[in-house]
């Protein structure tokens, strides 16, 4: 038995001249929830449609549970899927909607009724059997969608932006519900979204996509703390990118030249002296203090260019010899516009990003 439930191997899909998926390779483990995250047009939906069989890849193979299904039509792939617009059958009741996959599979009536009952119980919609979709709220409709997808216990659950049509509060609630269900059933799930918060909250692993390529695959923490490319860093959370040049490569650290100052950062492979790189750090990892006394290691001198009060934090733009660094502080200490400050870039929070790296995973 293969470790992987779903494998996209070197999948390329073109629409005319547009390459929607450019040699995408993705492997999804049994029982894990993987999110495909990216802006619209990044190819995440195309990748999902390759898994469902609604797209046939131009190149590459698709495997589900170790079997090559590249040429298997959608209706024989044994999938469960939840749609952004719910896609319930409007002429059928809740019961009939959930029963549909079982009816198609030719199960007998008693068996069907029992399984539908279980599925509706799972999504807490008992008592709504006779309602039509249009009589339900958005959240309820999506629960029906979820029940319909899960009712025959498919190997794989696919979710295509299932919460985008719901309001913010419900979205958060449903997020946990989906995660909880997925873990309880131990089902392998692929979740497509453009919402980074949703991706971080839900996923076991995240695949960040852009321009048809997979940029990075990793746990939410890996993606957030060690973004592989500028795009990933930028797409998830706030980022500072400070142009820098490598001046020394040592075993314990790499030393960068930032506007004439020396900044030590954790070592990475594939850098050499003289290379132009970006120093990446999250604005809330940067420390500020008033410019008094000597500068300590990894501090640069700057002046406050702009400050914004955000309620629970302050947002500063610090001018460091023409380079703007964004800083967010929770501290009580306030800095005024034009004030001279020392900007501390903590060694362990700094990352090196190669700007030339467009597709991290090939």
């Amino acid at each position, binding site marked *: 038995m293969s470790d992987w439930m779903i494998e996209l191997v070197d999948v390329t899909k073109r629409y005319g001249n547009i390459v929607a998926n450019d040699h995408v390779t993705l492997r999804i483990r049994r029982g894990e929830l993987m999110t495909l995250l990216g802006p619209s047009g990044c190819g995440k939906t195309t990748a999902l449609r390759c898994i469902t069989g609604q797209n046939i890849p131009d190149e590459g193979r698709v495997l589900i549970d170790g079997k090559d299904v590249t040429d298997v039509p*959608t209706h024989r792939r044994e999938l*469960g899927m939840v749609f952004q617009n719910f896609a319930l059958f409007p002429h059928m009741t809740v019961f009939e909607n959930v029963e*549909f996959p079982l009816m198609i599979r030719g199960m007998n009536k008693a068996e069907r009724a029992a399984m539908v009952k279980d599925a509706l119980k799972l999504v807490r919609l008992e008592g709504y059997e006779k309602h039509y979709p249009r009589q339900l709220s958005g959240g309820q409709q999506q629960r029906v969608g979820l029940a319909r997808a899960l009712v025959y216990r498919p190997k794989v659950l696919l979710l295509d932006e299932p919460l985008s049509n719901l309001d913010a509060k419900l979205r958060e609630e449903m997020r946990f519900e989906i995660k909880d269900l997925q873990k309880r059933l131990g089902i392998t799930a692929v979740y497509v979204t453009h919402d980074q918060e949703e991706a971080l909250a839900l996923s076991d692993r995240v695949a960040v996509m852009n321009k048809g390529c997979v940029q990075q695959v990793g746990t939410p923490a890996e993606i957030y703390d060690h973004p592989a490319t500028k795009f990933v860093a930028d797409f998830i959370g706030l980022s500072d990118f400070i142009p820098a040049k490598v001046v020394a490569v040592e075993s314990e650290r790499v030393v960068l030249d930032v506007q004439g100052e020396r900044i030590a950062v954790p070592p990475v492979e594939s850098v050499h002296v003289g290379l132009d790189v970006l120093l990446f750090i999250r604005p809330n990892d940067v420390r500020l203090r008033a410019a008094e006394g000597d500068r300590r290691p990894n501090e640069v001198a700057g002046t406050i260019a702009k400050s914004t009060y955000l309620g629970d934090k302050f947002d500063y733009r610090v001018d460091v010899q023409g380079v703007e660094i964004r800083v967010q502080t929770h501290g009580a200490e306030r800095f005024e516009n034009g004030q001279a400050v020392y900007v501390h870039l903590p060694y362990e929070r700094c990352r090196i990003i190669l700007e030339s790296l467009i597709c991290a995973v090939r």
Partner: protein
Amino acid sequence: MKTLRQYLKALLNAKKLLAYTFLLCFFLWVTTPFLMILLKSVGRNWFGKLWLPPEFTLDWYTWAITVTNIPEVLRNTLVIAGIAVGISTLIAIPTGWALGRRRIPGKEAIMSTILLPRMIPPIAYALGVAQIFYRLHLIDTHIGVAIAHVAICAPYAILVLSSTFEGLDERVLEAASVCGANNLRTFFHITLPLVMPGILSSIIFTFTTSYNEFTLTLMTYGPKTITLPVRTYLAVGEGYWEVTSALSMILIIPSLFVLFMIQRQVQPEKLVGGFKGV
């Protein structure tokens, strides 16, 4: 009593009063001619300034049925309407599907062309049709009259069905296939039930159009294919107003029946456009 008072209060509300007045005017405007015909068809010796006929009778209906050979005429009308509905629907399903679901260059131009027979004066169009039909020996055949009717029935059907098919949500069909249904089962379990209200409404529209059609029939009918509207018109010429009125009432009955069916069976708000996804 409280509810009655509330009701009267609401009724006296100026805005509502205006609305009800308009509604009443509209109602009278639509129904008065029917009322006239109804009274005429059951009245005897109703002349001059009398508000109501002095005597009531059903003789005129007997006359209408026997003298004007109603069973034969009704059969013609229904056969022609049936053929016209059949051909129109057969044309409209693929055409509507193409117009509603596929990107076609010049879609607007095609739509205008389809609607053309409805835009130009019917008598002009009918004249042209008649000239062609004389050469093709289609005059005074059921199929001929029906084909002439198709020219104005099909545009309705295409219009209704293209919007029905357009409203069919692709993702619902995809959902069915993910659920395990192949194309055939998706068609029977999902597509067909979803477009059925649209097809029904198209059939009802085309049926009533053909059933009521006068101008095109007048130019293409013959002794063997005389229809109810034409027969009624001819009866006017024969000068028996009472018999003509009775004929008109007979003509109206199936239309009322269809209207009743629309109200009861298919909710009109669902007819045009069919279901719109969620």
